[in-house]
């Protein structure tokens, strides 16, 4: 019996004032996998993730998450998923413990105090738990956002540029923790990024987007082999320039 995809996106379109932000995107993500959504600024990654989360309603097309149609049936599955994005923040005046308590209650987490201690220990936040979130460094805030996104031990984790604006050491630390979580929990992860090294390290599959469309979709190894390149960054540049050349030729 075939396993149902954790995320299924079919002919997804989002148009803002006649400008397509996402233009006929389709893909399915297998449960327990880590998939990267790669693309430059304005490629449509964030809009695609927001439609998967139910924060934005598609102009047309269909999104199914853990078997529920989004956004209509989102309350069937929201407690089984979570996200992290640079477009949202945690309330600054509340301490880390207060923020995690509020979100833990919203997600219906039982034995919440123990869960907060467990996350604080795993993410090296124990000493900071009673400090206001606004008084933390960028790296510490990212770890708090990660703690919030893991508070309900989600089966599905949507991450929008989780290591943006972090120094290399902190970014590496976050990636290591994410890898461990996904392995232990067998969670499905969709990771939007324009950091090629991050995607290459974490993801077993890469979807490359440009101007709202999927330009390529394969495993990092097969992409490297097919394009004859050593890094995903080179592959990405090949894909981006090929498209530009095709457009110029068409004109």
């Amino acid at each position, binding site marked *: 019996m075939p396993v149902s995809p954790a995320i299924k996106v079919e002919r997804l379109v989002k148009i803002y004032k006649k400008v397509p932000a996402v233009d006929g995107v389709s893909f399915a993500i297998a449960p327990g996998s880590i998939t990267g959504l790669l693309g430059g600024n304005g490629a449509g990654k964030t809009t695609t993730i927001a439609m998967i989360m*139910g924060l934005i309603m598609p102009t047309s097309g269909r999104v199914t998450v853990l078997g529920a149609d989004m956004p209509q049936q989102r309350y069937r599955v929201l407690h089984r998923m979570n996200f992290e994005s640079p477009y949202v923040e945690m309330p600054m005046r509340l301490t880390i413990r207060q923020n995690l308590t509020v979100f833990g209650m919203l997600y*219906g*987490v*039982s*034995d919440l105090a123990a869960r907060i201690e467990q996350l604080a220990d795993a993410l090296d936040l124990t000493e900071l738990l009673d400090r206001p979130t606004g008084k933390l460094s960028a790296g510490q805030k990212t770890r708090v956002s990660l703690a919030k996104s893991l508070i309900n031990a989600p089966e599905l984790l949507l991450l929008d540029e989780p290591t943006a604006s972090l120094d290399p050491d902190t970014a590496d630390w976050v990636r290591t923790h994410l890898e461990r979580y996904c392995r232990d929990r067998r969670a499905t992860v969709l990771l939007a990024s324009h950091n090629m090294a991050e995607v290459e390290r974490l993801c077993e599959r890469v979807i490359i987007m440009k101007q709202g469309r999927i330009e390529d979709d394969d495993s990092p190894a097969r992409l490297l082999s097919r394009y004859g390149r050593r890094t995903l960054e080179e592959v990405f540049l090949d894909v981006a320039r090929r498209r530009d050349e095709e457009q110029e030729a068409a004109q």
Partner: protein
Amino acid sequence: MSTISARTESALAFSPRRVAAMILRYWYLLRSSWPRLLDLIYWPLVQMITWGFIQYYVMENAGFFARAGGTLIGALLLWDILFRGQLGFSIAFLEEMWARNIGNLMMSPLRPFEFIAALMVMSLVRLAIGAVPVTLLAIVFFGFNLYGLGFALVAFFFNLMLTSWAVGIFVSGLVLRNGLGAENFAWSIMFVFMPLACVYYPVTTLPVWLQPAAWVLPPTYVFEGMRALLIDHVFRSDLMLEALALNVLFFAVGVFGFLKLLQAARRHGSLMQTGE
């Protein structure tokens, strides 16, 4: 590993725990900021003192007001319930926009009705922090005991809070859809009610052609009821029931408007762009 207690639920499910989570969030915020607490009591106190002295002055110089002791200060205190009730609701909501936290909430299992319920409770908490000390000081300074109105005060309060919530809910929808550019509505919309709701004067003061517009607003019935009580010593239950009927309509329109504006915000992608 902890487990998730909430399982598959519908959009209309209501969880007291999620409402409590949001109330806790606002309580943490209030507790952490003395300027926020001071702000709750500062304006009501200044207004009460100013209008209390005006009332003293006119009582000494006009026979009508001598008979109608307390109408001005009573109107002021009831107006403050209406205004601060709406402001308390709207500010609690705006805190989420200012904190860029609305995306986190909209992605969580929190239902719109639970969010609204938490904001309603917080408007009561904020009002209590601001209004209770001021009403007690009104007794000390001017001998006006709002609590002396007894059951009538309960009826006045309930109707005014319903109106303030209805307006607060609708304004929150406007801000969700249009971003913080619509924030000014939260601060100023209630003043549209002020001249028409006849806070400080009877409806008969308005031109005849304008009076039907005044009777469309639930607070008009409350302020007329207050004057009937203080001047004629009559509790007009008919006015309170009419206000209640209109409030049910206002509340339904407010909630409907909020849900429609939330839907429009999802369509236009406003939930991801909560700035101006």
